């Protein structure tokens, strides 16, 4: 999440978090991605976001790549996320390579902090590990994405990236007038409270 660069002739530390969200098309991956990005943007962070698109999109896996940083971001894609959300079996298959150890080598150094490329610090949120709690709390398939949004906003609040309240605000703006709001709200709150 932090690494070193030379900027304006000074060595500085960059904060950069890379989040990859994945699920089946129709599970609402892009929706929760939009909310996370907006929350970070409103908080003054630099944000980039890019979906997969085209052929892959049609009835297949839906992916969203998010970068949040304190420095300007110019390249939106990455193969080593810090956080990886997997909401379906198809998505798990598709994102396997993202949790593999890369063969990129950075020389060790005392002064220089290397960026995260080895996938060893990756936090994987796999729906497989939440099947029990989702069942126990009676959360419907339709609301899985909002459950994970709750979980993600807790993680991001702990990292001082955005506040859960802000996310709630944006979520309300988007969904309060749509059918099933109460289920969504409930799923979010349970997600926030869960251990990860």
């Amino acid at each position, binding site marked *: 999440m932090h*690494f*070193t*660069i*030379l*900027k304006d002739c000074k*060595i500085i530390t960059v904060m950069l978090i890379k989040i990859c969200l994945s699920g089946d098309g129709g599970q609402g991956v892009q929706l929760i991605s939009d909310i996370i*990005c*907006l929350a970070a*943007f*409103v908080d003054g962070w*630099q*944000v*980039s*976001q*890019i*979906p997969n*698109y*085209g*052929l892959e999109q049609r009835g297949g896996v839906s992916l969203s790549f998010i970068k949040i940083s304190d420095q*300007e*971001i*110019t*390249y*939106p*894609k*990455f*193969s*080593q996320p810090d956080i990886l959300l997997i909401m379906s079996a198809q998505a798990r298959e598709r994102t396997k390579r993202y949790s593999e150890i*890369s063969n*990129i*080598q*950075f*020389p060790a*150094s005392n002064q*220089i902090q290397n*960026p995260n*490329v080895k996938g060893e610090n990756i936090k994987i949120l796999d729906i497989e590990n939440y099947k029990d709690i989702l069942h126990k709390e009676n959360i419907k398939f339709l609301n899985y994405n909002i459950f994970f949004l709750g979980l993600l906003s807790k993680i991001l609040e702990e990292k001082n990236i955005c506040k859960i309240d802000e996310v709630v605000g944006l979520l309300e703006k988007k969904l309060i007038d749509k059918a099933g709001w109460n289920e969504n709200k409930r799923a979010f709150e349970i997600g926030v409270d869960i251990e990860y």
Partner: protein
Amino acid sequence: MDKTRKFLTGAEIVVQACVDAGAEMTYGYPITPATEVFTGWIKRGKKYLQTEDEIAAGFGVCGAVLAGQKVFTSTSGPGHILMQDALSMAEGMRLPFVAIVAQRGGPSSGTVIYSQQEVILACFGGNGEGLRLVYSPSNLSELYTLTRQAFDDAWHYRFPAILLTDGYSLKMRGVVGLSQSQLENILPHPLISRDKVVHWRNIYTFEEELHQEISEARKDFAAVAEIIACSESWQTKDAEILLVAHGIVAAAAKEAVDQLQARGKKVGLFRPITLRPFDRKNLDKVASQANLKKIVVIESSAGQLARLVRDQLAPEISVPFEYMQFPGLGVETETIISHFF
């Protein structure tokens, strides 16, 4: 909160630039990943026509600019190939044709996603000498300013102008500050009007006639090059290794340079902003630095940028070249960095 700070897709930014440039209309045909430029324009309530193919779109643009209307088109890949017919007429007749081209994988239908494989097509497509203006934005801010510039330069200098971007840039959302930069727009003017009768051809009877036309156009192009050829030299002072990259790959390369410099590596970046005309003056300047040991050309193609660089580099400059080529693939900062360890 800073009202000028927005979170937009590249496509939305391009559309905004076309609106701010005073474009009145677009002729287009849907093709991924350029479609959102077309539909984004339509969403703004502006005039448009969806034609039967890119050929009709391109020639619709030609007709419109002849009549003095500021218009543009947008396309990609196979559509870009079809567009070369109209671009060639625009080149021959010096028409202010503006095209937004989003590179996708090639050849053939390739991918709908991304590449840097349409560089040669943009610069030299058509059956002529490549007398067109090609801009390669490296970030969302430049996507805006270079689109504005494309309109201005096309109408000012009467060469077709191509804003050459890619699927990643148009589909990504990023933070951009679009302060209403007081860029003044050049006013369009009719090339054919009722006040004067012109007889205007693009085919000549004799070789000498064509040669004369081309000579004059080349002279004009060289003069324009003096004014608009543009590049960025990043951390190139005392560089031992010079990276050369354009567009979004240059953005990753820039990040790589910052990290490499922090580790004491003397790596710099030369970034062409106009691919055509190429900023050979500054390329030569950087490439002839005393400490330079090698040039590494990085691109999402199998050598299209490298071709331009080698062609433009002054023949008396002799530096070893290395190539990092990823046709159709994105290039991450980490990939570039790890190459140097």
